[in-house]
């Protein structure tokens, strides 16, 4: 798949990214970069499912579990995030299996799948708000400052350290994306997204394949939530969970381009830079303006450019590359019953 030239370009780009914080030390810009990397990872996790037509609005829930479980274990039980993060991922994965299995088993697809996952992120948001005695409710939650080892608590004041951690996590996400892209599972899932019955007839275990990719996606999203919590040291139900966060993931992934590995990253760069520029440009009056521009862009993108910025750009650069598969014509394609 990857030629020598592309591999070299990746290596060069990566070396530049690793070297960056040692050359350029402006804390504000590093902060923005860390946020971009963390959210890119979250959006990439979403697109693992989304590119196969499994549109989930429940990922806000997985992210919230990742963030809150890690923080709660640290504050109440004193459990280090090194154990807390895997546990939070297990929790999110278990939830994904519990909801995903019946969904796939009973062939809940299309609008119905979207709305079931919407209910899921609604539940997580309401549970976090309702257990306000432990989680601080909608006022937010702060992990306790570490008294002992910073490394054990996974709390660093240094932006460079966080930049490198976020870079590593993001890179892992991209590698997993490529690993899935080159695996047999990809062909199975593409077949499922085009026609579930035909795929089943061809010997694809539809439920198992969907469940695997959902589990993977949920685990990665929970990790993104936990890393975000450790970096920001402050989480509220609205910033890490709920329907707004889920929609934000869908939006960024679509703007960047769902079917290319760096698409969600491009989406994160565009959305976060847009938000920051508007915030600085308008000052405190900017409340709402960034989202207004987002929303308008989202609508325009779905109508005019369903393959996203990077996806369309790559197509234009190499028009003869391949005949686009039917499902890539659409922003997201779902196997519709009866068609």
């Amino acid at each position, binding site marked *: 798949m990857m030629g020598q030239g592309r591999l070299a370009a990746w290596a060069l780009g990566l070396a530049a990214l690793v070297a960056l914080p040692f050359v350029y030390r402006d804390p504000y810009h590093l902060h923005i970069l860390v946020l971009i990397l963390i959210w890119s990872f979250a959006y990439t996790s979403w697109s693992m499912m989304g590119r196969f037509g499994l549109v989930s609005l429940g990922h806000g829930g997985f992210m919230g579990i990742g963030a809150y479980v890690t923080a709660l274990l640290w504050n109440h039980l004193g459990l280090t995030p090194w154990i807390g993060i895997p546990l939070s991922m297990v929790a999110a994965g278990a939830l994904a299996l519990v909801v995903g299995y019946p969904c796939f088993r009973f062939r*809940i697809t299309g609008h119905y799948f979207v709305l079931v996952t919407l209910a899921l992120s609604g*539940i997580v948001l309401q549970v976090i708000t309702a257990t306000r005695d432990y989680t601080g409710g909608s006022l937010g939650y702060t992990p306790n400052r570490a008294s002992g080892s910073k490394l054990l608590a996974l709390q660093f004041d240094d932006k460079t350290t966080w930049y490198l951690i976020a870079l590593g996590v993001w890179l892992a996400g991209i590698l997993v994306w490529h690993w899935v892209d080159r695996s047999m599972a990809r062909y199975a899932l593409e077949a499922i997204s085009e026609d579930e019955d035909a795929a089943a007839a061809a010997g694809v275990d539809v439920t198992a394949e969907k469940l695997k990719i959902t589990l993977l996606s949920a685990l990665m999203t929970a990790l993104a939530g936990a890393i975000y919590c450790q970096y920001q040291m402050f989480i509220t139900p609205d910033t890490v969970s709920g329907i707004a966060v889920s929609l934000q993931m869908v939006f960024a992934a679509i703007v960047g381009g769902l079917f290319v590995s760096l698409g969600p990253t491009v989406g994160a760069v565009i959305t976060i830079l847009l938000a920051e520029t508007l915030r600085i440009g308008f000052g405190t009056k900017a409340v*709402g303006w*960034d989202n207004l521009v987002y929303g308008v862009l989202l609508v325009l993108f779905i109508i005019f450019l369903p393959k996203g910025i990077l996806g369309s750009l790559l197509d234009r650069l190499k028009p003869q590359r391949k005949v686009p598969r039917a499902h890539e014509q659409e922003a997201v394609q779902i196997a519709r019953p009866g068609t």
Partner: protein
Amino acid sequence: MQAFLDIFDIYLLEAVINGILLGGVLALLALGLNLIFGVIDVTWICYAELVMIGMYAMYFMVQYYGISYFIAAPLTILLVAVLGAALHYLVIAPLLTAPPINQLLATGGVLIVLQSFATVAFGIDFRNLGIRLPVLAFGDMNFSYARLLSFLAALVGMVAVYLFMTRTFTGTAIRAISQDRQIMALMGVDTKRIYLITSALGGALAGLAACLLVLQYDVHPFVGLSFGPITFLICVLGGLGNFVGGFVASFVFAEIISLGGLFSDLEWGYVLAFAFFIVMMFIRPAGLLARRR
């Protein structure tokens, strides 16, 4: 112990009746959404945000310009109806042939636009009409007039829609399209016009709901999120496009929220309702009243 049981029963009855009153408004919202889905085959994720805009319209007309509530209400209904038609014309119509999920995501974008528009234009303050309706005491139970009024108005609205759908030519055409959209175009019905009328009707129902909800709740840009998701779940639970199913599901949901709120916090009522929804999806995926395949 006996005294405790007496009080408990009164509260229980009050919660049950409040649940029914809440169900009326939810049923109105579900009806509008079901209408859009049944006829155009599109889910308006931003439906509750149309209601929010309507609530702001009511607030400004009544509070700022001093227009009487009963003149402001029809104006609001008209305004939201126009908004609904515009939404269809600008966003849905270009996407009619696109896969359904793109339409759903596009209205998700409209949701963000409307929310942030309200934030930019009106700020994030909570506002209310300042109309305080008296509380109706019945025995030891208290009911707010606002809820009772909303319930009755919602019922009247639903009956009006029912009559429109069954007694007029346009209404018959709308029902026919929801049964078979390809054939109706061949029968000489202008589907584009019917879609636009349906969207306006759906908007008008959202406008009516706004006039009623503004009596009970404060307006703020994110008020749509507090009843929007519930409305979708109700429609799916009743079977998307199934009017009777949506009606029944509204009351089931309202009771769960109301009773759940009685035994614990209101949030747990919502959690219970969401969990009930997920379980029901597995038991009856095609809706409460659907025939088993």
